[in-house]
């Protein structure tokens, strides 16, 4: 299983580096969305709840953008067949793609978070950074799992670009909820405090549960 995941992951990262299809688009989208929020909310700086909410909604939409491209090469260039012909555990495809999506999200955040800090965030970001990173990692895991699962469902339907977001967004409401609640105290104007453990726990439970479910059902999407 590990070999298969490694092979798939290597292939995907190499392809992404060569084509730069997803990551720049996702990043650009995130930064543009921050600009839109500035105009939409008519605010020069955000803090606390509002900052957390804007950040997470933006990251979520950027993720949905990336999710749409996740299986396109497999679908259009016979990648599904090529993989299905190999004597490997089929769930390896799910694991590899989820890790790839997670990696894309992390790279996007490396640019988007500083952009957010510069463009919209009132309070300083340096102190709460470790807490923020913890929230980002946990939430990204949930987003990557759901995004990969939904992309796997959507890629073989007719209206695949539409079905994807429609399924993903409701499924990720708990993640947005928990991540925003966890981020709000980090970005508080009056001085940051650590992320409440309760919300990190919720994120972890969500990730674990949905991860197990996804792991269990993904095979059934691939067989014919």
């Amino acid at each position, binding site marked *: 299983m590990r070999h298969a995941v490694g092979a798939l992951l290597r*292939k995907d990262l190499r392809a992404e580096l060569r084509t730069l299809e997803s990551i720049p688009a996702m990043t650009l989208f995130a930064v543009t969305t921050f600009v839109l929020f500035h105009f939409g909310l008519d605010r020069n700086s955000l803090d606390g709840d509002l900052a957390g909410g804007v950040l997470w909604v933006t990251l979520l939409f950027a993720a949905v953008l990336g999710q749409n491209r996740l299986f396109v090469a497999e679908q259009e*260039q016979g990648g599904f067949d090529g993989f299905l012909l190999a004597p490997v555990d089929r769930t390896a495809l799910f694991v590899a793609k989820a890790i790839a999506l997670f990696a894309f999200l992390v790279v996007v955040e490396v640019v988007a978070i500083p952009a957010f800090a510069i463009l919209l965030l009132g309070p300083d970001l340096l102190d709460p950074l470790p807490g923020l990173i913890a929230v980002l990692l946990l939430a990204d895991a949930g987003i990557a799992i759901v995004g990969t699962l939904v992309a796997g469902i959507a890629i073989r339907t007719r209206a695949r670009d539409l079905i994807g977001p429609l399924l993903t967004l409701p499924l990720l409401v708990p993640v947005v909820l928990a991540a925003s609640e966890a981020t709000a105290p980090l970005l508080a104007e009056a001085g940051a405090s650590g992320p409440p453990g309760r919300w990190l726990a919720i994120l972890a439970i969500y990730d674990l549960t949905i991860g197990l479910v996804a792991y269990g059902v993904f095979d059934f999407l691939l067989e014919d």
Partner: protein
Amino acid sequence: MSSRPSRATAVIELRGVTRSYGERVALDQVDLDVGAAETLVVFGPNGAGKSTLLRILATLLRPHAGTVRVLGRELPRDGYAVRGQVGFLGHEPLLYRELTGRENLRFHARLHGVPNGRIAELLERTGLTHRADEPVHALSRGLVQRFAVCRAVLHDPALLLLDEPRANLDPGSIDLVEPLIGRASGRTRVVTSHDPVGGLEEADQVLGLRAGRAEITGTATADELGALYR
């Protein structure tokens, strides 16, 4: 023409295999026996079920009815055990266009647990070494097909499933790939063909499909095969 193989040596054994796509029946109660090192050539007009048959044998599709035994294993239950021994060459080359030929082969080698040395050897034998480091999208269809052949035999499969393998290949290339996927390779092969005369030459057994039904089995003349298409 070889006689019906006994159960012990049968590489492929199909009984009453049926597969539909919604309302349309693609394969209808097909029976088949293929022995070791035999070549079965499948004829039939488009939509007759040739590709469906190949895909079922390749474990890519499940039959809706009937039993399928490949290399002594029952499909789809034991598909996992069979995959490593089957080489499939369909209409699609199954290569990622943004990667080079070599990278594609490395990817498949890793999935099949094949050492990298085998790749270099195959590239040599098919005369592809000097083009192996260009992205696939930059290659001509004939070269892509040659890389696809390499991909199909990379793991030294006992059974080859070939859907019009010589399409897009010029005579020179055909000579290069013959030892790998032709009769000379000594592997059991199921090959689809639209050429009654040429196909008959390499066949130990033929199967003529029309609208999913096996209309011709065992042996046939070129005329009988031609009638399938009318």
